[in-house]
């Protein structure tokens, strides 16, 4: 393209722009614009055909007006016409206009796509690039649908120009990121990998970007890229700074390509081929060596480029985590950077070191830098860097340095930025618990935390200290003494009052012998804080008081007087009033024995994942706590510092607020006192299976026990014993296995998959639903190596038969080991239903009959018919369904990462149509559909509002039938 000297080009446009700029007021500007718009409109409408130049000029003006913030409602056609011009600049302006102004639902899209298609086929590299850039810039799903199949062809075609290949690779990358499902994998993938060998560095760079993204989904398809990337990298790294000429950037050969290659290699494990691996290790060593050479230039670009490669190399070394020698070298290199005068390098070094700390090879090496890091925490002026230093301290902490690190972090907390205080509090709490050698230190640390940053100590932290104190009797006396002392401070944080109240209520008797902390003193100390506290704390203190009556009968009169006071008995807050009334009655009605039973010391809490760790993970996303979770470094810590489970579990602990303190649990009823009350309080604490009604030995257990020694005679027995187990009649269907509901939930938003699997049997499902009819294929796979007879029966239980008709042939077949048998079910939905039909399967293994009952994945939402409607209609219908019983709403915590695309897919899978542009808040999802049954149709509207900050959702359903609303709401809520 020829460069243009100034003054050329569109004079009319220049005049117009300078007019606008000279406008003295907004009004003048609008006037000038309106005049211009009228002019352009008349030109476009005029009889005289405009030449390309004028069209371009006017389209440019429109574009300029649009960029000034005015709406443009015409000229699109002219812009589209420009696309078919043969002049570069006209075409370019056309494309520019299209990418800025045309939205996807325009009717012109067909014309535009046509023009793009022509350009892609034109063999003129400039035009092809323009078209590719336009596709990438718009990047919409529609563009993807139209062109995703063409671009790979252009990318790997032998005759494409380098520049076209480059643009095609980037364009494909963009489309893939926008809608991965549209980009078909195929034989071109292998050829893309070979672009790594291309002569043209630009093509290589673009290809690496593309492959890095694609290989994350299909690592096996692109596996061959490893050796190609290594050899490419090795050629670059070992080249002299002058070899690559144009690609040498401030004396560093192709730095950004190297960075990308190193990133690509991080998608894979270390190369298996010894030769490739040797070559790669050599490269990595070369980079580390080069870092020690004196800089070739003083320019910041030189050091940036060099260090970018270095950091990426270190990331790769850490990713492989298999070369102790390289890891230690990497650590030393980072250690140098920790003292570098460039803040950016200190920041990046701290960040890399954080990942290095979790490797067993380099953990010790990282620890040697502890003083530098602590110093950084104290003296860095930059909060980003301080944050990284705190992260690194957390990662490098182990038993040997825990006390030092925790005390430094506590000190830092006093001056830390508000934004990161809560995180630091969590980290200190976790470290203190994890590496506590003696629990008095732990209790001191947590109380210090509350003292220094009480506002940032979340519930999880102080619940945790209570759990630990309750579970360990060696620390209870010390804890009581310490909180008692802490409470004597004239102003103490409310969290301190909570912890103090709880601990004294449980273990106050352990320090009651000391006259300085005699029961009356304890009580008056706590009660002096009472009036300054919030309702929740006061409620907790009331529970402490009733516990005092049990622990110290001598305080009974005083406490009863307090409870009886008008301010308690007639408290405006229902919870406080109720507690006061009930505790007062309890203390006067119940005998000492009964009181002692009801108010017994809390039993130890079941060991489970630290609630704090769960919170930190939620805060930082998965992997945040990983340095500590893996427990690799310190396997012995778990049993000593009970509580922190080594297995990283994504399931967050159920909020212990209700169970731990009984704030929301019903207070012990006075009338039938004794253990019923206590049981009521405790039942929530044991969130384990004990509370579940026993179902008898589950089939699952039976399988497992069967699995171990397959009795040698069993195959014979199987084959020799053709006598079938009695066919199960409908009434023989046993209760579903405990995990049946969970298995069912997996199928609410999808129709195909594995319904059940254990060591013996796999049941797969394929199903399709239309209107009120459905067909389901069940595949029973025999996973053992022995032939076995499988009998099945399925159908809706009892009264469900009037709601759902299931027709099928009962399967009773001999299935060879490794083979499978299929069953077809025809399903008709007669009325709306709530419980799914059951499926019972029986077979013999090793001579023992096996049986299991599952819930068939047929839920009411399968009969959804999506309905598209405009916003206006939606709101009208929404209003029509405004009776309170027609609406079901649920607010719940996200169990999965909150990804809009995934949510969308789930909602579509659920069956409703997704309506765009209905909800004023684009984050929200709105859907509509009709549930088709034979007897009636149920219209259904739904709205899902994610709150990313709180990690919560609110789901609202409105349907014309009350049970349907509730049922759908429950089904859907479990999916997120």
């Amino acid at each position, binding site marked *: *393209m*020829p*460069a*243009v000297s*100034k*003054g*050329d*080009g*569109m004079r009319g446009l*220049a005049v117009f*722009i*300078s007019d606008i700029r000279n406008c003295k007021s907004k009004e003048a500007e609008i006037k000038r614009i309106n005049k211009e718009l009228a002019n352009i409109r008349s030109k476009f409408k005029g009889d005289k055909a405009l030449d390309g130049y004028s069209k371009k000029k006017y389209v*440019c003006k429109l*574009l*300029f007006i649009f*960029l000034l913030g005015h709406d443009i409602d015409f000229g699109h056609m002219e812009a589209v016409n420009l696309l078919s011009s043969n002049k570069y*600049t006209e075409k*370019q*302006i056309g494309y*520019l206009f299209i*990418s800025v102004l045309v939205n996807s639902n325009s009717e012109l899209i067909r014309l535009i796509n046509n023009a793009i298609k022509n350009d892609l086929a034109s063999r003129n590299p*400039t035009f092809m*690039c*323009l078209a590719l850039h336009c596709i*990438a810039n718009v990047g919409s799903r529609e563009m993807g649908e139209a062109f995703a199949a063409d671009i790979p062809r252009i990318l790997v075609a032998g005759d494409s120009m*380098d*520049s076209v290949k*480059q643009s095609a690779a*980037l364009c494909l990358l963009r489309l893939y990121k926008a809608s991965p499902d549209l980009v078909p994998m195929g034989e071109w993938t292998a050829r893309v990998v070979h672009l790594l060998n291309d002569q043209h*560095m*630009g093509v290589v*760079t*673009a290809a690496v970007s593309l492959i890095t993204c694609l290989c994350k989904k299909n690592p096996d398809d692109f596996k061959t890229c490893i050796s190609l990337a290594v050899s490419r990298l090795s050629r670059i790294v070992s080249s002299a700074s002058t070899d690559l000429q*144009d690609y*040498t*950037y401030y004396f560093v050969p192709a730095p*950004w*390509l190297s*960075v990308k290659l190193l*990133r690509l290699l991080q998608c894979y494990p270390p190369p298996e081929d010894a030769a490739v691996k040797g070559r790669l290790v050599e490269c990595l060593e070369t980079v580390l060596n080069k870092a020690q050479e004196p800089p070739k230039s003083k320019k*910041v*670009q030189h050091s*940036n*480029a060099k260090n*970018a490669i270095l*950091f*990426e190399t270190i990331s790769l070394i850490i990713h492989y985590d298999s070369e102790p020698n390289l890891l230690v070298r990497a650590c030393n290199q980072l250690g140098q950077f920790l003292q570098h005068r460039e*803040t*950016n390098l*200190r*920041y*990046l070094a701290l960040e890399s070191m954080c990942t290095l700390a979790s490797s067993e090879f380099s953990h010790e090496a990282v620890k040697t830098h502890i003083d530098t890091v602590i110093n950084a925490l104290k003296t860095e*002026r*930059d909060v*980003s*860097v301080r*944050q990284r230093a705190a992260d690194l301290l957390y990662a490098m902490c182990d038993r040997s340095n825990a006390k030092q690190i925790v005390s430094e972090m506590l000190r830092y907390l006093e001056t830390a930025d508000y934004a990161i205080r809560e995180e630091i509090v969590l980290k200190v709490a976790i470290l203190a618990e994890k590496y506590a050698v003696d629990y008095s230190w732990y209790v001191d640390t947590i109380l210090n935390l509350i003292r220094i940053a009480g506002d940032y100590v979340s519930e999880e932290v102080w619940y945790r200290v209570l759990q630990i104190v309750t579970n360990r009797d060696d620390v209870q006396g010390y804890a009581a003494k310490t909180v008692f002392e802490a409470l004597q401070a004239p102003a103490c944080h409310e969290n301190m009052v909570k912890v103090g109240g709880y601990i004294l209520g449980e273990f106050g008797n352990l320090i009651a012998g000391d006259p300085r902390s005699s029961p009356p003193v304890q009580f008056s100390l706590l009660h002096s804080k009472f009036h300054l506290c919030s309702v929740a704390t006061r409620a907790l203190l009331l529970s402490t008081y009733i516990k005092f009556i049990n622990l110290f009968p001598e305080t009974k009169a005083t406490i009863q007087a307090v409870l009886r006071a008008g301010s308690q008995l007639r408290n405006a807050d229902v919870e406080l009033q109720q507690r006061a009334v009930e505790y007062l009655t309890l203390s006067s009605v119940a005998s000492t024995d009964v009181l002692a039973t009801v108010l017994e010391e809390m039993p130890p809490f079941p060991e489970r994942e630290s609630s704090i760790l769960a919170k930190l993970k939620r805060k*930082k*996303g998965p992997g945040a706590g990983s340095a500590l979770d893996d427990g690799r470094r310190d396997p012995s810590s778990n049993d000593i510092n009970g509580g922190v489970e080594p297995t990283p579990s994504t399931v967050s602990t159920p909020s212990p607020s209700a169970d731990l303190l009984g704030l929301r649990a019903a207070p012990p009823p006075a009338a039938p006192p004794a253990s019923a009350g206590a049981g009521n309080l405790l039942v929530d604490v044991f969130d384990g299976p004990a509370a579940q009604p026993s179902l008898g030995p589950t089939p699952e257990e039976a399988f497992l026990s069967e699995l171990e020694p397959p009795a040698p005679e069993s195959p014979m027995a199987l084959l020799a014993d053709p006598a079938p187990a009695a066919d199960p009649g409908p009434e023989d269907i046993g209760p579903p296995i405990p995990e049946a509901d969970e298995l069912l939930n997996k199928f609410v938003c999808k129709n195909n998959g594995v319904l059940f699997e254990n060591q013996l049997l796999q049941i797969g499902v394929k199903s399709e639903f239309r209107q009120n009819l459905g067909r389901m294929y069940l595949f029973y796979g025999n996973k053992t190596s022995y032939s076995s007879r499988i009998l099945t029966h399925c159908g809706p239980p009892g009264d469900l038969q009037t709601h759902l008709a299931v027709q099928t042939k009962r399967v009773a077949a001999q299935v060879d080991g490794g083979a499978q048998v299929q069953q077809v079910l025809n399903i008709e939905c007669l009325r709306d239903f709530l419980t799914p039909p059951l499926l019972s399967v029986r077979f013999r293994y090793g001579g023992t009959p096996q049986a299991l009952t599952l819930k068939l994945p047929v839920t009411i939402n399968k009969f959804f018919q999506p309905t598209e409607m405009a916003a206006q209609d939606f709101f009208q219908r929404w209003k029509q369904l405004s009776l309170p019983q027609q609406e079901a709403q649920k607010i719940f915590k996200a169990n999965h990462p909150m990804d809009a695309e995934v949510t969308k897919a789930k909602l579509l899978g659920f069956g409703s149509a997704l309506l765009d542009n209905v909800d004023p808040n*684009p984050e929200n999802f709105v859907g509509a559909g009709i549930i088709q049954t034979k007897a009636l149709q149920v219209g259904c509207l739904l709205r899902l509002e994610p709150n990313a900050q709180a990690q919560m959702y609110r789901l609202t359903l409105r349907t014309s039938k009350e049970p349907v609303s509730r049922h759908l709401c429950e089904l859907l809520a479990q999916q997120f």
Partner: protein
Amino acid sequence: MIQAILVFNNHGKPRLVRFYQRFPEEIQQQIVRETFHLVLKRDDNICNFLEGGSLIGGSDYKLIYRHYATLYFVFCVDSSESELGILDLIQVFVETLDKCFENVCELDLIFHMDKKFPALPEGKIQGANARELQMSEVHSAQICRHIFLLDSALLTE
């Protein structure tokens, strides 16, 4: 991947805004405001990286910025980009602007939208000039070109 490019002046007035993810306009403005407040309170000689604000991305994203005279150039990127690479990209970006405008300053971005210059089209990207390679290397050639197109708005023959 680059999520957004924001250029605003010392008073937080946006001069150039480009998002590569769809946000409604109010959110875009909020993001610019939030980002401005994040970078404004930072000294000039501290590090150029900071965690993304609450609106854009979250903890996986970083803001990488440079401050030139009266303008802040902020790139919001995810963890797949090299921090130093992006930092350099900003430098190259500004250098390119400088080349186009001759001694670029804030006023150029505001007023000289009409200034006639060949706004970095294909020709330059192909020219194996190390600088432009930079851009394509961080796979943003397109991105940059697009901004130029947008905000210099009008190009020439």
